[in-house]
Every structure is written in structure tokens, then in C-alpha cells.
């Protein structure tokens, strides 16, 4: 479904991502883990059209989406839950959700999805009129996921959704992702929490800095490698 081929992205003279190749198949849950500054966020921002690659290609359903505007890429079915959540703090919770459906014309479908999302995250219903800035970090993360789901994405990208959350909230986020995956959503999850990612993902890529792949494998393969976290990426 998504193929990133030999992707290179730079900020001026800094090469953030070099010749990165990853793929995500329909229905798959793929993890992408790596150190700070490894180029994970850069990769996601390039896939969603905010950044332009210096080289390589990004294919979605077999067609290149490089050079398309972010709203067009979203229309094709790729939604991003960005690093730091980036809730619109001055918009209400309800408005934050509604704006997630900007690309859609099917009013009925949007209403239906809205109801499902409010059932899934009752806290958003409760704080419907509160401004986004007033939610706690965990609540904002629910809102960011809800906002992305309202575009009815075929591929959901998430950038460190558990960053800065309390342990209980971290569990909740992984639970939600697991549920979404079981319901058929295709997911590409960027995380620093390698252990938890390997648990939920079908397959995980491990990046080292400069956006090069250190290794990849299914969860079983990575688990078999035993102490791979301490040995290869030195993270807990």
C-alpha cells in the first residue's frame, strides 16, 4: 500500500534521511523505532507532503505522491497524528474533530464516524465545548487520534503518540492502536518505546541516525534476537 523507496530528505545541508526504504502492506501494523534525531518525524512529514524529498520516491497504491499538497495526500487516504499532537488549542474539542473531516463530502458518513469516535473516546464528548488547550496530554492525544480518524484514513501514521504520557495513558494508547488495527486500519507507528512497539506491531523497522535502516523483522524475529534493544539501539 505504502512504499518508500530510497527516500532522502535534507534540511539545508543536514541530511536527515538517506536512502530509506520501507513498506507497509494493506491491513498491516508496522513499527518504526529509532533514536532521537534518527529521521523518523522527517520521514512521516515527507510522506504526508509537508516536506519535499531530495531524492527517492513515495508510492501510495502504486502511484507516486511526491509533490502533492498535504490536503491532496490526505484525500487519497493518508492521515497523520503528528509529533506533539498539535491540537488547535484555541478551537474547541468539537471544532478540532470537525476540522478532521474537512476533506469529506459524505455528511452521513461523517456523522456516523463522529458518533463512533465519541463512543470510543467518551472524554471528548464530555469536553466537547472546552478549548483544546485545556485538555490534559492524554486527552489531547485521544483528540489528535480522533481528528485523524475523522478523515476516514486508509493508512494512519502516528508520530510518538505516547511521548510524555503517564504509564496508564501509554497502555491506553497502545490498546487503542491494537483495536484500530484489529478493526482493519493500516498503521505505521513511529515510537521510541521499542519494546511496546514490537509487542503490538506485525513488523518493525529499526532506524539509526541519518534515516538508515539498522534492521527490520517481524515481532517474533526481533524477539528471538533477545537482547536486541540493549545490544543494537541501547534503549529501554
Amino acid at each position, binding site marked *: 500500500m505504502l512504499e518508500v523507496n530510497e527516500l532522502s530528505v535534507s534540511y539545508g545541508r543536514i541530511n536527515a534521511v538517506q536512502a530509506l526504504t520501507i513498506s507497509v502492506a494493506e491491513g498491516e501494523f508496522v513499527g518504526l523505532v529509532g533514536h532521537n534525531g534518527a529521521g523518523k518525524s522527517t520521514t512521516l512529514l515527507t510522506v*504526508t*507532503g*509537508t516536506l519535499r524529498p531530495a531524492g527517492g520516491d513515495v508510492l501510495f497504491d502504486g502511484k507516486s505522491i511526491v509533490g502533492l*499538497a*498535504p*490536503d491532496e495526500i*490526505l*484525500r487519497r487516504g493518508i492521515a*497523520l497524528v*503528528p509529533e506533539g499532537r*498539535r491540537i*488547535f*488549542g*484555541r*478551537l474547541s474539542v468539537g*471544532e478540532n474533530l*470537525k*476540522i*478532521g473531516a*474537512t*476533506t469529506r463530502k459524505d455528511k452521513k458518513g461523517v456523522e456516523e464516524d463522529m458518533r463512533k469516535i465519541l463512543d470510543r473516546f467518551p472524554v471528548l464528548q464530555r469536553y466537547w465545548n472546552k478549548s483544546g488547550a485545556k485538555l490534559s496530554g492524554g486527552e489531547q492525544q485521544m483528540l489528535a487520534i480522533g*481528528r*485523524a480518524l475523522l*478523515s476516514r484514513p486508509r493508512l494512519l501514521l502516528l508520530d510518538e503518540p505516547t511521548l510524555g504520557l503517564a504509564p496508564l495513558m501509554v497502555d491506553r494508547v497502545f490498546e487503542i492502536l491494537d483495536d484500530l488495527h484489529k478493526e482493519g486500519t493500516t498503521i505505521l507507528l513511529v515510537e521510541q518505546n521499542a519494546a511496546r512497539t514490537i509487542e503490538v506491531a506485525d513488523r518493525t523497522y529499526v532506524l539509526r541516525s541519518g534515516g538508515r535502516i539498522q534492521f527490520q523483522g517481524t515481532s517474533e524475529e526481533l524477539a528471538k534476537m533477545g537482547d536486541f534493544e540493549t545490544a543494537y539501539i541501547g534503549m529501554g
Partner: protein
Amino acid sequence: MIVGSASVVIQYILDSIANGSLYALMALSLSLLFGVMGLMNFAYGELIMSGAFTMYYTHSWGPVGMIAMTVIVVVVMSLLMELLAFRPLRKAGPSTLLITSFALSIALQKLAYMTTNPGIPKTVRPYPWLTQQFEVSGVLMSRLEVIIWVMTIVLLVGMTLLLKRTALGIQLRASTEDFRMSQLVGVKANRVISSAFAITGLLASVVTVLFMLGHGDVRPNVGQGPVLVAFVGGVIGGLGSLPGAALGGFVLGLVLNILQATLPRSLQGHTTMFAFLGVIAILVLQPGGMIVSIRKLRRKRDQAAALSEGAPS
């Protein structure tokens, strides 16, 4: 005597409210563009100028034709500005945009000097029934003043409804806060920016009509002074906040007008100096503008309330 001076004060304030209202609308326009695309558009003054010339050349069409044409010309000018001058600079930083807006402002003024024969003084002939003053319980006012108050309220309410109740409004507010993110949720960059320029143009055309019906003199630099005052007013209120900017413009316009009328004659030429000294003082004390400090106060109050209640959930 006391009664007399009280009504004089009321008179000054009434006269100044109209002035403040126009600056509120201008500052609101500037703030909208600043928020959506980081542009401080000094060429806004030339929207007013192009409107003023349109009024001059179409005056003979009668008020309806003149006003309609002015609205059309100013809105189209605003959209063209975006398309030709600012769209190519979409990725540029705020300072590039600022300098471009200055260049555009000067270029349009020079163009007007070259094409409109400035040797002949031009005025939009006033409509006496609009500007003639009448007395209401001891104070004088004109129909034009009343129209300015009403139009300002209508436009502010209209803007509020647009921003709060419509999909476009939500998109504009989201873009003001985080432009990149708004694109990531599907907002079309070109569409919100064009809409912001169209709204700005509409507000500018109303300001032009109301301003020129009172002042009359049509010059290529007619918009330059007002846009500066509106800019400073917006900065006082906080350009990042739409209501803040409007309030700042209103207060500065009001104060300038009152100073103009009350300062001793020898100081009257220096009203703007006093006003701007006040502005510097405010910015030194509160760099984010007035609204920011109001927000801070409110947050403190909320926190205090939450603490005393024993914070819920």
C-alpha cells in the same frame, strides 16, 4: 457649567467612537492576514487608496453604483495582491513578506501619482444629509456617525459568526494557529489564504466608503496614515489575536481623536507623538499586547478557582 462640561466630554467620546470603529475594522483585517500567513500587509493602505479613487471616479453614478463599484474594485485588488505579489512568496519568511508589502505599497502609490494627475485636487463630494449634525439630548451627531457605529457592529458580529459558526471560519482560525497542521487535516492553503484576502478586501472597502464620506480628500497616499495607526493599534492589542487587534485599533483611534480635540493648541500637531509614546510604554510593559495580559489574568483566576474547588477529574 458642570452639566456643560459633562456633555462636552460625552461629545468628544461620541465623535471619537466613530474614528475608533474604523481603526478597529482596519486592525482586524491586518490581524487576520498576520495570523493566517504571517504577513503584515502595509499595502492595505493602497486598498483604501484604490477605493478612494474609485469613489471619486464613480461619484456621478449615484451612491449605490459608487459603493458597489468600490466594494468590487477593492476586493478584486486584494485578491490580485495575493495572487501576484504574495502567492509566489508562500514559502518566504515574515521579513520578506513585510518588505514585499512595503514595496507594493510604494509602487501602488507611485502608480497612482503617475496615472491620476495629482495637480488637480480631488475630493469625494460629501452628501450633506449624511454629514450634517443634529442634536440628540444635548449632543451633536451625524447620520454618518450612526451608520459607522451600526456598520462596525454588524461587521464585527458578522465576522464573529463567520469565524465561529462556519467551516471556513474554523479553517481560518485553525490556520491562524498552526498553518502547517491545518493543511495536514485537509485545509487547502490557497483557499483559506484567498478567503482571508477577500474578507480583508471587503472590510477595507467598507472602511474606505465610510472614511471617504467623512473626509473626502483623495490622494495617492490617503491610506498610508490610517494603516500605520491601525497597525500600531493592532500591535497594542496583539496582532496574533483577532479580538485583541480590533480592540487595540479601537482604543488607539479613540484616544488619538480625543487628544486631537483636547490637547492645547500648541501641542495638537503632536498628538500622534503622545499616542505612540503611550504605545511604547505599553509594549515595554506587556510585549504580547493587551489581550495577552487579559488572558493571563483570566488563567490565573481560573487556576485559583480550580484550586479552591479542589480540582475536578
